[in-house]
């Protein structure tokens, strides 16, 4: 098998990174920029994830020391070439955004560690560029999420190639898992800690916002469930015989436990029940319920990527 678990993890973490940033950006935008902290938290968590994913991609190469060859070409038709550029620029712009935010924590003229404050004062005039960079990063986040699906669908493996629903499924799952990580980080207070570490005020996130994130997440989960159903049924009934037998390895064959128990039950059904139960309860979401549902969603996202990556190469 040519592509194994490192690829599945890359597609998983790249999706989470893109999804978390995307969700944070639109939530901040639609509330009239009241949630800059969300955006910061999303960048803080997505940059390391993207770096981890890129590292795994290099590890999976046959000739790791030649990885730089990827950046000698810009091939629009090759999703892997596009993906390498997207991962690289996403991480670079994210790092610049963190640096610019960090300079804001310094008062002008303040004397702290000389070298660091000197550096901060040098890049401080560019701090206004964060707004523009945030929009560019949004475009990259959307491309990053799409890349995880397009990478597989631009091929000739029956499970991957016979459908337009694979990019749709992976984007939906990216936003679902990304929102889950965002909510997990906010609810546990790690988000505030990160913000404090990087020189922010560490202001608390209001509970209504967290509940709104939970509600959005639940609806994205339902969309993903419907898309997954469409993807499986579409391949099984309306595609080639090869695609139908590829689906059979997932739903009845060696991968069926991973699919039904991991991707469907753990990743979608149980967390959706928890999320909707917490929505119905009409009170502030319980920490335990949020922790359980978001962790399950994150795990399930990995199982989904693993099943699709391995299943595509089993026929």
């Amino acid at each position, binding site marked *: 098998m*040519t*592509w194994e678990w490192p690829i599945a993890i890359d597609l998983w973490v790249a999706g989470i990174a893109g999804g978390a940033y*995307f*969700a944070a950006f*639109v*939530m901040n935008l*639609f*509330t*009239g920029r009241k949630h800059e902290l969300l955006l910061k938290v999303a960048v803080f968590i997505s940059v390391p994830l993207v770096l981890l994913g890129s590292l795994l991609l290099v590890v*999976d*190469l*046959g*000739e790791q020391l*030649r*990885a730089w*060859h*990827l950046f*000698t*070409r810009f*091939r629009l*038709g*090759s*999703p*892997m*070439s596009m993906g*390498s550029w997207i991962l690289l620029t996403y991480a670079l712009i994210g790092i610049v955004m963190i640096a610019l935010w960090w300079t804001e924590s310094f008062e002008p003229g303040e004397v702290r560690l000389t070298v660091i404050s000197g550096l901060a004062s040098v890049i401080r005039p560019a701090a206004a560029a964060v707004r523009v960079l945030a929009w560019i990063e949004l475009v990259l986040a*959307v*491309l990053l*999420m*799409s*890349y995880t*699906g*397009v990478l*597989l*669908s*631009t*091929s*000739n*493996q029956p499970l*991957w*190639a016979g459908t*337009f*629903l*694979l*990019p*749709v499924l*992976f*984007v*939906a799952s990216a*936003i679902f898992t990304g929102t889950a990580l965002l909510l997990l980080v906010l609810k546990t207070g790690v988000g505030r800690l990160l913000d404090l570490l990087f020189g922010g005020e560490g202001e608390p996130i209001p509970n*209504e*916002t967290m509940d*709104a994130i939970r*509600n*959005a997440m639940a*609806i*994205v989960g339902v*969309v993903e469930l419907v898309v997954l159903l469409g993807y499986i049924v579409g391949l099984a009934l309306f595609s080639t015989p090869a695609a139908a037998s590829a689906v059979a390895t997932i739903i009845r064959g060696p991968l069926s436990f991973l699919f039904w128990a991991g991707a469907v039950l753990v990743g979608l059904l149980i967390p959706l029940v928890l999320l909707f139960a917490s929505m119905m309860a009409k009170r502030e979401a319980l920490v335990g319920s949020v922790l359980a549902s978001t962790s399950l969603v994150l795990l399930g996202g990995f199982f989904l990527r693993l099943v699709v990556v391995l299943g*595509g*190469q089993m026929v």
Partner: protein
Amino acid sequence: MANAMLIDESRCMGCRGCQVACKQWNDNPAEDTLNWGTYENPPELSGITWTRIKFSEKVEGDQVRWLFLKQGCMHCTQASCEAVCPTGAVRHQGQYVLVDQEWCIGCGYCVAACPFDAIHSVFEARDGGEEKATAKKCTFCVDRTTNGLPPACVKTCPAGALQWGDRNEMVAKGKERVAALQAGGRARANLYGEGELGGLHRLYVLVDEPSGYGLPAAPRYATSSVGAQWLSGIVTAGVLAAVPFWLLFKRQRAQEAKEEASGGGEQ
């Protein structure tokens, strides 16, 4: 002048001399295999097995007939491996589709993209385990054919099933052979590869439907819908931005505005 290989499957007798010749000329090691109940061996093409006779069993009445297919790289005009290669290591040189072994990073994308499953990663023994290395496949014996010699498999075929020469000539010969087979009662005989993917440089005279041999009836260029695939991902993100995010947070904003207004009234 593009050359092509004409493979007359009606003449192939499944001796697999071509497999041995290929291994010897290209210095590829043997595969470690077990008897798995058929004369077909090794079980599939790989980074060190660039051609192989596939045995398909076809039941006709109470008779079982073998269909032999000499598998290997088709050197497609629209080559999926070349299209998806992120570094440009796989590229056309004349009619040859070649992998630059010094430039290939071993990502394995071409392996997933090939519609004929003809290109594979080489797995090398390293540190006690097997590790993926670069991708390799049939080169049409480029070192022989650019020096006026036929590919090793063509040279060795004892049944006269393989020919190497100008592509137009090979197409004409193939059609002639198909007509002769059809006149002899093989009604389903056909020529495969003339127009597929812009024209393959491996042409097959088949005595049955391509699907009977396991060949794709309409091979797909891997990147044929890549733009639309990107678009479907981007549109999904757009739709999900509107529902649920825009809807939910619009409501939250309206609620906050109302609270602010009523709060202002109390003061």
